[in-house]
């Protein structure tokens, strides 16, 4: 197909900015949207959200990568969930931008690797705006600044429709990361505030990141009120 035709095929994609929301509710919302997308009842949809503190353990994960006793997690108000995405353990919490694309990869070349690379590339392009060089480490998906990780990926694909996605540390409590071996590895994490010396509002970073993702995924994002989408999610 001629390359000039592609621009006419830019897909309109729904963006649902959830603000701050707890992990379990958003998980249920993701599942509901995933079912609707797989049934062709909604178009591709991208959730952005900031979670209350939580640890999630993926399919390749183990509670052995939690380095503190359950009492400490309880004191800090951190819940632990087992989830079906790929990967090991990760932390979500205030100051972290989480992006959950619920999209049909049959429109993205049916390529799991390309999908992960596009998620990573959005963050790499955004970091470049701040003069920060983000990169990849072979065999360790995510976005790294030097040897420190600034964004994690973890995805679940069924009927070629995605859920879960990307977590980008904007201004996180890094002490919370000290409670785990992120991704099952003894690695250090970093955060945009640490690298720039400034705390940016998550909504602003979300807008910038999504703007970076649009050309990579050939999307045009249209923001919608999440209210109606929460219906039926209890």
């Amino acid at each position, binding site marked *: 197909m001629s390359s000039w035709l592609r621009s006419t095929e830019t897909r309109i994609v729904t963006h649902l900015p959830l603000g701050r929301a707890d992990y379990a509710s958003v998980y249920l919302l993701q599942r509901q949207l995933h079912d609707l997308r797989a049934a062709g009842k909604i178009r591709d949809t991208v959730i952005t959200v900031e979670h209350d503190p939580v640890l999630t353990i*993926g*399919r*390749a994960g183990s509670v052995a990568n939690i380095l503190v006793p359950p009492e400490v997690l309880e004191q800090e108000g951190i819940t632990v969930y087992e989830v*079906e*995405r*790929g*990967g090991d353990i990760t932390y979500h919490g205030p100051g972290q931008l989480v992006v959950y694309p619920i999209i049909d990869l049959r429109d993205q*070349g*049916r*390529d*799991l*690797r*390309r*999908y*992960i690379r596009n998620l990573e590339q959005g963050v790499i392009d955004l970091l470049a705006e701040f003069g920060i060089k983000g990169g990849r480490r072979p065999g360790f*998906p*995510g976005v790294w600044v030097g040897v420190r990780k600034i964004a994690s*990926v*973890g*995805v*679940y*694909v*069924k*009927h070629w429709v995605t859920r879960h996605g990307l977590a980008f540390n904007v201004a996180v409590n890094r002490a919370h990361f000290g409670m785990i071996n992120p991704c099952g590895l003894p690695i250090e994490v970093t955060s945009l505030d640490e690298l720039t010396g400034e705390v940016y509002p998550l909504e602003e970073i979300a807008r910038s990141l999504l703007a970076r993702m649009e050309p990579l995924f050939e999307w045009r994002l249209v923001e919608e009120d999440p209210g109606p989408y929460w219906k039926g999610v209890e």
Partner: protein
Amino acid sequence: MDERTEVRLPDLGEVEEVTVTAWLRQEGDTIEEGDDLLEVETEKTTFVVEAPQSGRLVRIVKKQGDRARRDELLAEID
């Protein structure tokens, strides 16, 4: 019909190899076309392989923890 249907790893793009992380059905189970059969993982992505046809899951070839490449035989349905 005694022709067995082969369940093979679909083309997942540039992915070279996956690991079988979970079987969602057991040998001997009766399954419907489109049922979730197993999960495979690559690069932090879980992918659910569906049953290509209804029948009985007679043989699991790639077990949990095994690696598989594109088009490799995962199981047989009768």
